[in-house]
Structures are given as C-alpha cells and as structure tokens.
C-alpha cells in the first residue's frame, strides 16, 4: 500500500487536524512554556530582538533606544540568539511548519501575481509589526497569552482585532478583487 493511502499518514500528516486538537495542544504547550521559561508564549517581541541583532551586526547600536532600555531587554540582547528561549521557539515554529508541509507533500514556492501583493505584504507587515510592538504584543503575546493569563487587556485586544479585521477585509476586497 502506498504511503499516501495509509489512514494514519492521512490522519497525522495529510489532513488538517481538528480545531479542538489544536486548541488542546496550544493550551498544553502554553502551560509548558510558562512553567519552563517563566514567561507566556510570545512571537513578535522576539522579532524585535532579531531586528536589533541584525542592526548590531551591521554596526548599529540600540543601547540608547527606549524600547531596549530595560535591564531585561539588555540582558536578552547581550545573551545572544542561541541563549534566547523565544528565538529558539520562533525557529522551531518555522522549522515545524516546514516539516508539516513537507510531510503533507504540499510544499510549493508560489509565484507573486502582482505588485499589489508585494505592496500589501510590505505595508501589512510594517503595520502589524509596529502595532504589535506599540501594543506590547501580537495575537499570540497580547491575545492568546493575555486571555490565558486572565488579563482584561487580552479581551480588549480581541475587540479591536475584530474591528481591524473588518476594515482589513473591506480593503482587501477593494484592492484585490
């Protein structure tokens, strides 16, 4: 029997897992993350550190930047990429996603259809990155970790997330249809 017809291959690698499975696993790993690293799961804060390291690699310095002024932020930056748990986790997410798509035999380099896609990706990325840092978190750090820590801020975030998604989907239809 070919591997692609094997029912366990289909269940584990080919077909999408049910939402409930994802929810249970995310919750379990959130508990594990909080217990082992002392902080809840976050993604975009780590990306800001990556930006700082890249900037330092080309000779820049962020010592005087207000964002990186705290003792904790300085310690993380001095500790470096390899001793930052958040960086390791983000690398793990990227490698895990690659593994999943390769196992499902669905890896594909997609063509860029128009300059609009590039413009939207760059503008959207900048807006999300800036928003995530100014709001002290993205949909993981502020929403998922916020709500799972019984923080009201997570729920406030959720309300505005829906408002933003509403406006975003209107813009999407306007510019891409």
């Amino acid at each position, binding site marked *: 029997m070919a591997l692609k017809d094997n029912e366990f291959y289909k269940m584990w690698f080919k077909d*999408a897992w049910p939402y409930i499975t994802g929810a249970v696993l995310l919750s379990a790993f959130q508990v594990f993350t909080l217990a082992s690293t002392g902080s809840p799961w976050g993604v975009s804060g780590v990306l800001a550190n990556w930006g700082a390291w890249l900037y330092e690699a080309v000779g820049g310095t962020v010592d005087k930047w207000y964002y990186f002024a705290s003792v904790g932020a300085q310690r993380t930056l001095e500790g470096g990429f390899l001793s930052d748990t958040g960086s390791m986790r983000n690398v793990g997410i990227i490698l895990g996603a690659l593994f999943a*798509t390769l196992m499902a*035999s*669905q*890896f*594909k380099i*997609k*063509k*860029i*259809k128009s300059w609009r*896609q590039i413009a939207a990706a760059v503008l959207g990325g900048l807006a999300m990155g800036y928003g995530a840092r100014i709001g002290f978190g993205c949909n993981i750090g502020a929403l998922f970790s916020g709500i799972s820590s019984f923080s009201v801020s997570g729920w406030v975030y959720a309300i505005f997330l829906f408002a933003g998604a509403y406006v975003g*989907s209107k813009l*999407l*239809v306007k510019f*891409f*249809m």
Partner: protein
Amino acid sequence: MAEYELDCLGEACPIPLVKAEKKLAELEIGDLLIVLIDHSCAMKNVPEWARKEGHNVEIEEVDDGEWECVIEKVK
C-alpha cells in the same frame, strides 16, 4: 453546459473564496466552475462554502500543494 476556469494560483485567503463566489453567481445552472488553488486554507473553505450552498463539489490534489476544486452549479 459550459465549463469555466478560475485561476487563483498565488492568491491567499480569502481571495479565492470571494472570487469563486462572484464567478459562480454569473454562471448558469449546470455549468462547471474549476477553481485552481495553491493555498491550503482556500482548499478547505472554497469546497466548504460550495457544499453549504448545495452545489456538487469535488476537490483533487493535482500537484504538490496545488488543487482543483470543481463546482457544479445546481441551483
């Protein structure tokens, strides 16, 4: 009975779904709409939407990460 092809390769969610909705509305009953998709979330939501609307739907993986969703407009 006519056959139409909708090329959504390289388009991310929810564009394939919105395009398929618009295109299908223009078709006559009995026509076939073939939606080409290479975004795994569109591979789920396009057939889901078409089935919910009561159309006949078949989805086939034609290449690595590439699908053809065939929708027969029934009403």
